[in-house]
């Protein structure tokens, strides 16, 4: 780290020139924003190299991503995706706040979708009753499913990161089976549930066709998480355990119960996203349709990039929304496959994970 921006030495006994500057640079490098921003920049650079290697122009490609996502005509769709990614980011961020990784977003998502489809499709009740009921039901079922991982960790020592990852495909497979056979629409070529009745569809926002009240519900969840995180005893305990689990246990935090609550809340958030997706166009649960857009991992990446902080999630979610939505546009206009946005997400996650590992090593070494 050489320092080119050294201010002139302040006195005769100032240390060797460059020292204060170097210290300044080092302090700046330790700023908490450096690693996340660096991760994004690195991801974009690697993406550019890949595009170049494919013989294409990265500037055109990235321009296509941005214009594709943010042109006025597609903003409606972009906002709805932003909401879904925020919702899935919540599912990752709540446990992340206490240092746990929820990798089971997919399972929680489809269980929520299934529950909403069943409730909304079968209860002949007026909209103002059936819609909240479907959302709530989805939250409860997915929350319960997410919560399974907590006792597995506290009673049997199976890490939450593992149990969520392994339980998720089971839920996905069960839902897939149900949608194919018992609950499937008779005679349809695709595995899907019947279309929801008009009354059981999520309320629209004006004449927007993608963004609906579901987006507001998810944003409300984000606000609730922000309040709980910063102002409540539970949120404080969550952050304490995330910062130092032993400190929490010593201070009287019931870590097992906290994990149960966090995993239930995380599952519920994912379940709500599933419910909103099912109750939005095309108003049915189609096998695989909730998972294939990859909101779960976009949300995880957004949560990691935000360090689980609720105030930053909407911002980091914008990045992955743009990549997600713009990726399709890039494919169309710049001929770059949309899978590139998955690559970029992956790089961001790897860089951030590396930071976590390095941090851990450093603290271990300093306490040796």
């Amino acid at each position: 780290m050489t320092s080119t921006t050294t201010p002139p030495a302040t006195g005769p006994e100032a240390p060797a020139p460059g020292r204060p500057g170097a210290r300044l640079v080092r302090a700046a490098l330790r700023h908490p924003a450096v690693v996340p921003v660096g991760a994004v920049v690195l991801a974009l650079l690697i993406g550019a190299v890949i595009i170049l290697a494919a013989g294409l122009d990265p500037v055109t490609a990235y321009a296509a991503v941005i214009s594709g996502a943010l042109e006025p005509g597609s903003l409606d769709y972009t906002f709805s995706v932003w909401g879904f990614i925020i919702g899935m980011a919540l599912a990752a961020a709540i446990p992340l706040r206490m240092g746990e990784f929820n990798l089971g977003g997919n399972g929680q998502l489809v269980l929520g979708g299934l529950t909403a489809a069943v409730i909304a499709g079968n209860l002949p009740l007026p909209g103002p009753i059936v819609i909240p009921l479907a959302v709530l039901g989805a939250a409860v079922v997915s929350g319960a499913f997410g919560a399974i991982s907590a006792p597995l960790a506290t009673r049997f020592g199976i890490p939450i990161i593992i149990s969520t990852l392994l339980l998720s495909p089971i839920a996905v497979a069960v839902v897939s089976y149900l949608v194919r056979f018992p609950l499937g629409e008779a005679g349809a070529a695709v595995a899907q549930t019947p279309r929801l009745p008009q009354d059981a569809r999520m309320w629209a926002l004006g004449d927007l066709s993608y963004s609906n009240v579901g987006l507001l519900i998810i944003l409300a969840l984000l606000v609730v998480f922000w309040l709980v995180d910063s102002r409540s005893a539970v949120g404080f305990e969550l952050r304490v355990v995330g910062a130092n689990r032993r400190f929490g246990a010593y201070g009287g935090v019931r870590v097992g119960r906290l994990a149960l609550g966090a995993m239930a809340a995380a599952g519920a958030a994912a379940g709500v996203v599933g419910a909103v997706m099912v109750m939005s166009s095309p108003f049915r649960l189609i096998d695989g349709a909730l998972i294939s857009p990859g909101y779960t991992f976009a949300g995880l990446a957004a949560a990691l990039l935000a360090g689980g902080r609720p105030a930053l999630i909407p911002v980091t979610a914008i990045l992955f929304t743009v990549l997600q939505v713009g990726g399709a546009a890039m494919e169309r206009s710049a001929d770059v496959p949309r899978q590139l946005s998955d690559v970029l997400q992956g790089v961001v996650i790897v860089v951030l994970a590396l930071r976590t590992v390095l941090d851990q090593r450093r603290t271990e070494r300093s306490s040796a």
Partner: protein
Amino acid sequence: MTSTSGNDADAAGLDGPAASAVPAVELIGIGKRFGAVVANADVDLVLRRGTVHAVMGENGAGKSTLMSMLFGLLEPDSGEIRIDGRPVRFAGPLDAIAAGLGMVHQHFRLFDTMTVAENVVYGAEPRRPGFFGRGVVDRAAAAARVRELSERYGLESDPDAVVGSLSAGARQRVEILKALHRDARILILDEPTAVLTPNEVTSLFAVIRRAAEGGATVVLVTHKIHEVLSVSDEVTVLRDGRVTGRFATAEATAASLVHAMTGRAIDEVRNPRTGTPGATVLEVSGLTVGDSGAGSGSGSRTSPGGGGVAAVSDVSFEVRAGEIVGIAGVSGNGQHELVAAVLGTLPARSGRVRILGDDVAGRSVRDRRALGLAVIPEDRRGEGSAVTMSVAENVTLGHHRTPPIGSASGVGRGWMSIRAERARARELIRDYDVRTSGELQPIGALSGGNAQKVVIARELSHRAPLVIAEQPTQGVDVGAIESIHGRLLEHRADGGALLLVSHEISELLALADRILVMYAGRIVAEFPADEATTARIGAAMAGAAEAASEPDPEDPES
């Protein structure tokens, strides 16, 4: 682990006679810091060929760091390492191995699914010609090599046994064989007896003697005094990262070693010893606790295959209101596990703990604290604080559900007032004279003494009838020690009960009304304040056997 005065090296130490030959290893002026923590400062260590040299000190005294530097795992910030008189720089353990060093780590580094012979020769395999040149490991030669080494050093070992099936003692022999296979002339054993049964310890010591007589240099890292006295030729004692004593073992006594390990300048504040103790606040009876198993090194008696040796066995005592009961002992003798079992972070195997008359069996940490317990923990950074969080947040944990920050009932239940949190933090910072740039500064940025004041402020501000203080002045500068002692005495004067765990004898003598001594998980002696002396406590701390041979025994087998 900030450096304290502790400069009685010259007083207590007696430099080994200048060796006739060039010593096998010389460490000169070694220093190492991790951030603000000084792990080693200006350490000199001379290992003469064919001797067993004990490096002793308490947990956190810097023994492991020093050995890691000698073995190339860490690079010293300052100083020089010489092997056979030649200065060396190790980029890693491979360099150290090439220079003739071998290290047996406290936590074994073996492949559990492979055989003894495979583990021993790994990385330096005997080879034989195969289809692709000399590319094939010669298993027969490997097994023969293991047998030969076993024979020569008396290390009983079956080359074909799978390591995963072996006892801890047998695994350790594999580690030693591994070092010997690579022709290690300098063997470092890091807390080798921590996992061994007494019989295994005896045979290990025989091996160590045999290796030394064969010309090898053995470094024994330990905090157990009787081991040092029974097997070593020379001793170097570390405290707070500095050398505080050098002895020829023949001239060392248990008391002099304890003094070098734990002694510190006496401070000014003293217990007035006025007033009479009130009702019983803490009652511990027949308490037995298993090993904490935390890798921190404090729980040092794990045995393989679950269960484990008890860290605390059959301990009974009580602490009454307005009384300070001290627990003396070299660290690692069960004090920490005792505290953890009272707090509830470690389950008791048997026995009873009553806080203010309530049996707390099966109760959570939160419930026990609610009954009126506050704990100042030994491991400030690992257990007593969250270094990345602010001073305000650190001082709030445990107070966040009660007024003024939280509220126990009503609509505010479960919510916190950030304003009250910060105001209370500012108040405590002022009261306890914590030097910080503000309540929002991360506690990790504070010096050890100031961080400790924050922990003490948090715990004492509970106004709990029972306070347990574990090493409350460890790694704290002299000025802060005085104010911390003052606070603890204030708690006593206010009618509080205090259980003070310390390995600083001077601290116990200054503060405690009664002193219990723990050794190997048991209370081996009890002294009222007016009968306690450094010599008596030191003798009991060194273990019952040593105490019996002291000139002034105080019936250690209580």
